[in-house]
């Protein structure tokens, strides 16, 4: 049979704006979280990760915030560029090595 695709939440921003993408995770025992970017027809590409003993981590133009109390993760992208347009997934490590991916958010950046 045919699979019904999930409706992806979409965030539309202008080039140069800051973007914030949110994610709720399910397992309070998870100790490692990752944000991946997926462009059309490609595999997930690592952006940034964070361990549960931290609440913030910064990379180049990206920041990940972790709120363990409410099991919430966010990805902030500064000065968003058209090349940032993609689907963004959060993932949590459950158990030894298994990653559980979230639903994803589509980011659309207009020039």
């Amino acid at each position, binding site marked *: 049979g045919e699979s019904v695709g999930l409706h992806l939440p979409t965030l539309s921003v202008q080039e140069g704006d800051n973007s914030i993408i949110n994610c709720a995770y399910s397992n309070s025992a998870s100790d490692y979280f990752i944000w991946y970017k997926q462009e059309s027809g490609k595999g997930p590409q690592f952006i940034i990760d964070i361990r549960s003993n931290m609440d913030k981590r910064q990379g180049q133009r990206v920041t990940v915030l972790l709120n363990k109390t409410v099991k919430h993760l966010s990805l902030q992208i500064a000065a968003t560029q058209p090349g940032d347009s993609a689907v963004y997934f959060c993932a949590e490590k459950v158990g030894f*090595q298994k990653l559980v991916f979230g639903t994803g958010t589509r980011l659309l950046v207009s020039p």
Partner: protein
Amino acid sequence: EPEVTQTPSHQVTQMGQEVILRCVPISNHLYFYWYRQILGQKVEFLVSFYNNEISEKSEIFDDQFSVERPDGSNFTLKIRSTKLEDSAMYFCASSGGWGGDEQVFGPGTRLTVL
């Protein structure tokens, strides 16, 4: 920069046929994975592999699926008798070595079962 490669990029097969999807993980990595993504859905874990054996598998990974590391560089996923619902993108990933937990994904193989 080291990368995970996968072949073929697209595989079309008839229902009931066997397929083998191939991956070359990053050379110094020790952990290998297969994930799949049905069109428009999220990425789902299938199996992890370490030290020549399966370390974890999901409920999707039933007896129709098997994995193998036939030599020092390749990692394969075999689907014994494909079903229509096996149509998806299949991603190989690897992690470990001297790094942390980051799983590096390959570009994927699109499997279409007719």
